[in-house]
C-alpha cells in the first residue's frame, strides 16, 4: 500500500520558545521558502504549528513587530495542528486533511510516527499524489476490463469450438455408417468383378476355340467345361449382387451428401439474415445435426403447423435449437421423449421444445440463462449454451421462457415475432 511517507518534507522544527521575530526570519530563509506553516515541536513531539499567514498578520499590525516580535511563538501557535500518521494510506490522509483544512489554503500538515515528529506535508502534494493514484487505478480498471472482455470472448469462443467439436464428432459418426457400407460394397464389388472377369475370359476362350480350325475336340471339350462352370446355369450370377452393392453404395453416398449439406448450412459463417425462412426447416436441420445425441435414446415427436416464413438469421437459430436439443438429451437418462411444437400465434411463431428428463430444481430455474451457470462437471459444460440462446432470441426481438418440474421434464418456449428486426444482430453478433 502506498503511504503518505512519500510526501514527507523533513524540515527542521522550531520550539515554542522561538520568538516571533526569529520565526519571521526563518520564513524568509531558503529552508522554509515553500512552507505554509512551521512545525513546533517539543521533546520530539509536535505541539503546534504556526502559519506564515499568522506571522504576517502579527507583523501587519501597527507596531506589531515592536510589540510582539520578542514574544515566544508558542503564544500564537495553533495548538491543534493537523497531524497525520506517516504510515497512513493516501486515502486516509486525504480524508483527515480535508476534514480539518481551512480555505484558502494557509497551512501544511504535520507528519508523525506515533507521537514523533517526522516532517511536514503539503496539501497540494497530497492532492497530486491522490490524483496519480486515481489515474493508476482507473488504468488498472481499464486493463482489467480489457482482460475480462478478452477472457469472456475466449470462453465464448471455446464454447463455440466445443459445440462445433461435438457437432463434428456427431456428424462424423453419422457418416461412418454409410461410409462403412459404401467402402465395403465397392471393395466387395471389386472382388466380384474379378470373378466376372474370369467368366468373361472363359467366354472369350470358348469363342476363340470354336472359331479356330486347329482346335482339337479334347481342347474344345475342356474349354466348354471351363466356361460351363463359370457361366453355366448353375454358376452364381453376380450381377444381381453387383446391382445391390451399387444401389446401396449410391444410397449411402446420397446420405453422406445430405449430411454434409446440412453441416454446411448449419455452420454458415456469414450470419446473413434471410427473409422467408421456414422455421420448420431450421428445426429439421438442427435435428439432423444433433441426431447422434438423440438417436435411439430419445424419441422425437413433431407437432408442426404449417407456419408463415419469417425473416431471421437461420445459422443462429440453428445454434439455439441445437443447444436446446443437446441440453434435453443430456437431461434424459436412458430413454426419453422430446416433443417439438411449432405453432403460429398472432404475435409470431411459437416454438416449444419439451423433454421428459430430470427437470430443473426451482431454486436454480431463474439462473439457467445466466452465463456460466452450469450443473455439469468441469470440462463438460461451459454454462454458456442457454445464455447464447437467450442473446440470439433477443437479437431476433423474440423471447425465450422456461418451465420445468423436477422429475417431470423441462419445456423451453420461444416466440419469434413476424416483425423481428434483424439488422441489429449483425453488429451485436457474438
Amino acid at each position, binding site marked *: 500500500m502506498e503511504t503518505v511517507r512519500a510526501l514527507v518534507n523533513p524540515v527542521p522544527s522550531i520550539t515554542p520558545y522561538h520568538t516571533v521575530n526569529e520565526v519571521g526570519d526563518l520564513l524568509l530563509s531558503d529552508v522554509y521558502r515553500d512552507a505554509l506553516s512551521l512545525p513546533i515541536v517539543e521533546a520530539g513531539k509536535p505541539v503546534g504549528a504556526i502559519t506564515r499567514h499568522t506571522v504576517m498578520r502579527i507583523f501587519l499590525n501597527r507596531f506589531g513587530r515592536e510589540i510582539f516580535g520578542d514574544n515566544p511563538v508558542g503564544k500564537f501557535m495553533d495548538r491543534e495542528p493537523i497531524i497525520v500518521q506517516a504510515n497512513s494510506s493516501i486515502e486516509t490522509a486525504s480524508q483527515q486533511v480535508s476534514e480539518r483544512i481551512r480555505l484558502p489554503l494557509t497551512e501544511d500538515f504535520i507528519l508523525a510516527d506515533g507521537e514523533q515528529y517526522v516532517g511536514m506535508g503539503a496539501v497540494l502534494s497530497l492532492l497530486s499524489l491522490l490524483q496519480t493514484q486515481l489515474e493508476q487505478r482507473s488504468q488498472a480498471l481499464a486493463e482489467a476490463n480489457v482482460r475480462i472482455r478478452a477472457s469472456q470472448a475466449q470462453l465464448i469462443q471455446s464454447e463455440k469450438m466445443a459445440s462445433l467439436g461435438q457437432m463434428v464428432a456427431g456428424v462424423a*459418426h*453419422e*457418416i*461412418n*455408417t*454409410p*461410409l*462403412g*457400407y*459404401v*467402402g*465395403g*460394397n465397392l*471393395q*466387395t464389388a471389386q*472382388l466380384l468383378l474379378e470373378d466376372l472377369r474370369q467368366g468373361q475370359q472363359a467366354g472369350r476362350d470358348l469363342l476363340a476355340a470354336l472359331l479356330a480350325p486347329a482346335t482339337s475336340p479334347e481342347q474344345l471339350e475342356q474349354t466348354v467345361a471351363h466356361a460351363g462352370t463359370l457361366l453355366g446355369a448353375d454358376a452364381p450370377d453376380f450381377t444381381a*449382387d453387383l446391382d*445391390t*452393392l451399387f444401389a*446401396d453404395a449410391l*444410397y*449411402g453416398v446420397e446420405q453422406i451428401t445430405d449430411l454434409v449439406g446440412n453441416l454446411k448450412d448449419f455452420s454458415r459463417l456469414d450470419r446473413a439474415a434471410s427473409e422467408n425462412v421456414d422455421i420448420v426447416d431450421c428445426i429439421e436441420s438442427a435435428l439432423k445435426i444433433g441426431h*447422434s445425441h438423440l*438417436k*435411439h435414446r430419445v424419441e422425437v415427436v413433431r407437432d408442426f403447423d404449417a407456419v408463415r416464413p419469417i425473416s431471421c438469421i437461420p445459422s443462429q437459430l440453428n445454434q439455439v435449437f441445437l443447444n436446446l436439443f443437446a441440453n434435453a438429451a443430456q437431461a434424459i437418462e436412458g430413454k426419453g421423449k422430446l416433443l417439438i411444437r411449432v405453432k403460429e400465434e398472432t404475435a409470431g411463431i411459437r416454438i416449444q421444445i419439451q423433454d421428459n428428463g430430470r427437470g430443473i430444481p426451482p431454486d436454480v430455474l431463474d439462473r439457467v440463462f445466466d452465463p456460466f451457470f452450469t450443473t455439469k462437471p468441469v470440462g463438460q459444460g461451459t454454462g454458456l449454451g442457454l445464455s447464447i440462446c437467450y442473446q440470439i432470441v433477443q437479437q431476433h426481438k423474440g423471447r425465450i421462457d422456461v418451465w420445468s418440474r423436477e422429475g417431470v421434464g423441462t419445456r423451453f418456449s420461444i416466440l419469434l415475432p413476424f416483425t423481428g428486426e434483424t439488422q441489429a444482430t449483425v453488429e451485436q453478433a457474438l
Partner: protein
Amino acid sequence: MTTRARVLFVDDDERILRSLTLLFRSRYDVTSTVDAQEALEKLRHGQFHVLVSDQRMPAMTGVELLREAREIAPDTVRMLLTGYSDLAAIVGSINEGEIFRFINKPWDVGNLQATLQQAVEIACTTSAPKADGIIDITEKTLARLAVLDTEGGLHRLLLQGSYDASQLRHYTSVKQLLEGLQHAPPAVLVTDVTTAEGDISDLVKGLKREHPEMLTLVVTAFQDAKLLTELINEAQVYRVLPRTASATLLRSAVEAAFTRHALLQRLPSLTRRYTVDTPSRTANAGISAQLGGYLQRLRARQNSLA
C-alpha cells in the same frame, strides 16, 4: 473344414448387413439380423463361431448384447463393429463384453477379412467352458499378483483390498518389472498406462504378446478412445478401471483375473483367444527399447536352456 464356420452379424442398418453378407457369404455360413433380441435367440438355439455386433441399436446396445452373448454362448468369439468410438462403449466392451476385437466403421475389407478369419480359426480350435466357477480356490491362491506403480497409490489400494503383501510384487519402474518378469511372470499384472515414465502402452502390448497367459488390469483416466481400442486389439487387456476405482472394485477385478488365469493354466489352448494384433505404432521409444532388450534376454535364456 468340411462344414463352413457360422458367423452372425447384428446391425440396425440393413445395408451394413447386406454389405457384410455379400462380402463373407462365399466363405462362411452367414446369418444376419437387425434385431438384437433375435440375435440372442439365434445364439441360444444354434452354434455360431463368431458374433459381430454394432454398438448403437434401438432396443439394446452392442455391449449389452455381447454381455448376454457371453453368458449364452461363451464359445462364440465376440467383436464390435461401430462408427461410434465413445468411451463408455469401449470400456463396456472390455469389461463386460470381453471382446476379441473392436473395429471401427468404415472398415477395410482386407483387414476385416483377416480378422474374421482369425476369429473363426480361434473359435474352431478352442472352446471356452460355460462358467469360470469350476476353478478351485486353492488354485487361485497360488497365483501371483504384480503391480507396476511408481507413486505407490495403486499398491496401497491393492493392500487395502486385503491382499497379502507377501503375495504382491510391487515394481516401481519398468526396468524393475522387466527384471522381475524374467524369473517368473505373474498371473496378473495391475498397471496404469501412463506412469512417471510416460506412456507405457507399448509395454502392456508387448508383454501380452509374449505372455498371453498373463492377464492385465489397466487403470487409466479413460480419456483416449484410440488408446483404449488399441488396448483391446493389440493388448487384449482383461479389465480397465478408472483411476478413481475403489479397493473393492479393484479386488473383484483381480479375483476375476485370477480365476481366468487358473482356467488358462488348465486349458492352455484357451490362450489363443487372447491373440493380439501387431501394434500399429510405437508410443514411447524408450519403453519399446527396454521391452526389446527384455525380449532379447528372454530368447537368449530360452536358447541356452534348450
